[in-house]
């Protein structure tokens, strides 16, 4: 071949559509795509606001001392006003302050549950898909069994056997939660294990552990992060349900579910005592769901 056209070395003379995009950093591109989805950006703002509120709760809350067992009967059942944005409760505590501290509890629950259940679920899912045979059958049938039990009934059973507390609520919810991740990641990993690169890794002498953690897991990260984000909202809701039933966080710790539960005794006259914590739950769940949906579109994965 003797032509005058300049040739790149090594036959790299292929025209690649990615040349233009390479000029921009991948993070910049990712943020650009994400920012086009307004719902997701709103979700991100909500989630960030809640996290900031939780971290700086003592600084933000107008009456930090109201988070504990504070009593001021003169100020009980006050309607929302400039002084008390969300009104006060049956013992005169500022509901807005308690909501902000309640977010601390909610987020602690989310972090606790997900950091316990997601790794277990993901690992078991990948192992089941990769190992096949009786390992797969054992893991997945046990999983199916748990999925068949009504989650609330199981959680109630666990928390009533153990002492009702934040930690035990976490344990109960985690016990229910891992199997959804297991199911999802199992399906995904099942298709990844048939990919050529898994076979190539086996031919390269890679260990099972290497294949599970280095070859398959990185390809599941998108799905895991979407599912985890969507889950965060549901964990909060579930925790609130447990608290509402008196089996979760115990008073006087400010918990959104407990607050709705106590407030509901004074409905409809002092409506804000149940509705305001309820809206606070709505706000955080909405945030996580919008963010999760946005991430799903962004990563383009099925959950």
């Amino acid at each position, binding site marked *: 071949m003797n032509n005058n056209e300049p040739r790149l070395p090594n036959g*790299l003379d292929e*025209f690649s559509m990615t040349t233009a995009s390479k000029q921009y950093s991948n993070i910049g591109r990712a943020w650009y795509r994400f920012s086009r989805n307004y719902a997701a950006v709103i979700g991100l703002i909500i989630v960030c606001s809640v996290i900031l509120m939780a971290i700086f709760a003592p600084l933000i809350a107008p009456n930090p001392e109201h988070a504990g067992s504070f009593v001021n009967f003169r100020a009980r059942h006050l309607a929302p006003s400039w002084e008390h944005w969300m009104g006060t409760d049956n013992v005169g505590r500022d509901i807005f302050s308690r909501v902000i501290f309640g977010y601390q509890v909610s987020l602690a629950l989310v972090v606790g549950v997900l950091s316990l259940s997601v790794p277990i679920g993901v690992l078991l899912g990948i192992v089941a898909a990769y190992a096949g045979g009786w390992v797969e059958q054992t893991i997945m049938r046990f999983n199916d069994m748990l999925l068949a039990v009504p989650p609330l009934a199981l959680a109630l059973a666990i928390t009533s056997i153990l002492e009702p507390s934040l930690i035990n609520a976490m344990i109960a919810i985690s016990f229910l939660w891992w199997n959804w991740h297991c199911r999802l990641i199992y399906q995904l990993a099942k298709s990844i294990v048939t990919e050529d690169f898994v076979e190539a890794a086996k*031919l390269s002498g890679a260990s099972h552990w290497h294949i599970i953690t280095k070859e398959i897991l990185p390809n599941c990260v998108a799905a895991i992060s979407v599912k985890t984000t969507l889950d965060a909202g549901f964990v909060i809701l579930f925790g609130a349900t447990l608290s509402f039933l008196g089996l979760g966080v115990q008073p006087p710790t400010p918990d959104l579910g407990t607050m709705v539960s106590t407030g509901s005794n004074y409905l409809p006259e002092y409506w804000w005592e149940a509705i305001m914590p309820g809206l606070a739950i709505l706000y955080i769940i909405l945030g996580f769901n919008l963010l999760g949906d946005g991430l799903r579109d962004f990563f383009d994965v099925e959950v």
Partner: protein
Amino acid sequence: MTVESSNLVEIKNLNLSFKVYGGTKQVLHNISLSIAPGERVALIGESGSGKTVTSKLLINTLNPEQIQIESGDIFIQGKSALTMSKEQREALKGSVMSMIQQDPQTSFNPVFRIGTHLLDIMHSGDKNLGIKQSKTEQKERIFEVLRKVKLLDPERVYNAYPWQLSGGMRQRVLIAMALLHPTRLLIADEPGTALDVTTQNEIIKLINQLVHDEQLSLLMVTHNLGVVRKTADRVYVMQHGRIVEHGTVDDIFASPSHPYTARLFDSVPKLFHSEESVEDKPETPVLVRLIDVEKRFATKKNWKGSVINEVLAVKPTSLQIHKGETFGIAGESGSGKTTLARMIMGLSELTSGNITIENKHLDAWRLNNENRYSIQMVHQNPAASINPRRTIAQTLNVPLKHIAKVTNRKQEIQRLLKLVELPPEYADMYPSNLSGGQKQRVAIARALAANPKILVLDEPTSALDVSVQKSVIELLEKLQRQLGLTYIFISHDLSLMRNFCDRVAVMFRGELLETGTTQDIFNKPTQRYTKALIRAIPVISDEEERHKPKISDEDALQVLQQKY
């Protein structure tokens, strides 16, 4: 705006950009193209050259929000398409031009019957043309078109689900879809590329015949020069979004003037050479020996796990592979060639028979740690065989750590990249930053990292452009000389095998039909199937066409339609 023109379709000095993040990217540069009534025009180029964008622009299926026409115009039957209203433009689809979909596997919705797909198109076309007909009349017209594309049992095809038809039949249905309404220009984007070469040959014959009978114009979009030679009068060569050369097929094939076209022709492996250089390789000892190897797959088992139904993937087969040679296994999809190779690699159990390597039983041979990983593989599609989430260095690290047990792996990775002619800085890149050919080089480097004796090449170049294919094949030849490797080369591309393999085995539906030196198989094939297979390969010169083995159409058809 209208112009007087005898052309059915004309694109004039068109510049087109895609809107991408952070600006625009020009994909078509000053494209001019014309198609006269009844003319067959081919648009040829490698992936990313802009040929498909051009054809989509013509039929208006590009997303208008993503494109920006900088300058130029498109004239369809003398009228400017860019000034037309959306409805006018839409009405041209199916009445002036129709497109044949490329991929028969993915173009159908598997839950709907073929008839539903056809009726939908019939319905929307009728609406555009203002035809009102009952469903029975529409069905009658559909049957007529199905007969036209040589689907002899239209009733069955009409009522079938897509998965009940073979790839070739589905491709015919896709052609029928384009012909449901009288059209003037047929746009075919790589028709039959996903099919076997013998089926592809039939499809191309069919398109040619239809274009002739119906007096249509044809725009053939393809990367295959052999297909161009068979189906076009004029050809446009595209590279990097520009038309670099155009002219009649005869002129361009006789003397390509642009260096890119010349290089393209040069890259196509020749099926027959005028000066045959028969270099006899010295006879080497037998490395792999297959004795009556057979493989059955259970397709159905009862609850106790005993087999009720099974398919014979590989019928009892015996062959020998010599040390240092390139042994080709040729065959179409489903012929058992990959299964055979996987059995040699120990990835798939034999049902019966025996494989020996270096005169030892396969299992015994593999027990030796040194031999355990010494058969390596290069997969067909590098996009699938390299983990997209790991850098090149991480990928290459695995065999170096686990098999070669190298301590200074950084240096070894550099050596491997140099061996496959990639720049050293690629080590820290992710596969998405590499082109297809470069990824395949990485896959080759990974296989070499294990110090293999035998390399199984499973269609290593079929996902690559022809010029890249050439460079990859040259690399493989160089590596074989340097490292004394034995290659088992699996492919359906006979012209490539012709130039690359020392000996070839031809497989058909699980059966090994014949084995011999490449010259013997290509010059004096004994089996009818081999002849039919070689005959179907699209070639780029009359000389090659003359050298093809003689077999009558009836014979070829008969052997291809044989039952299992």
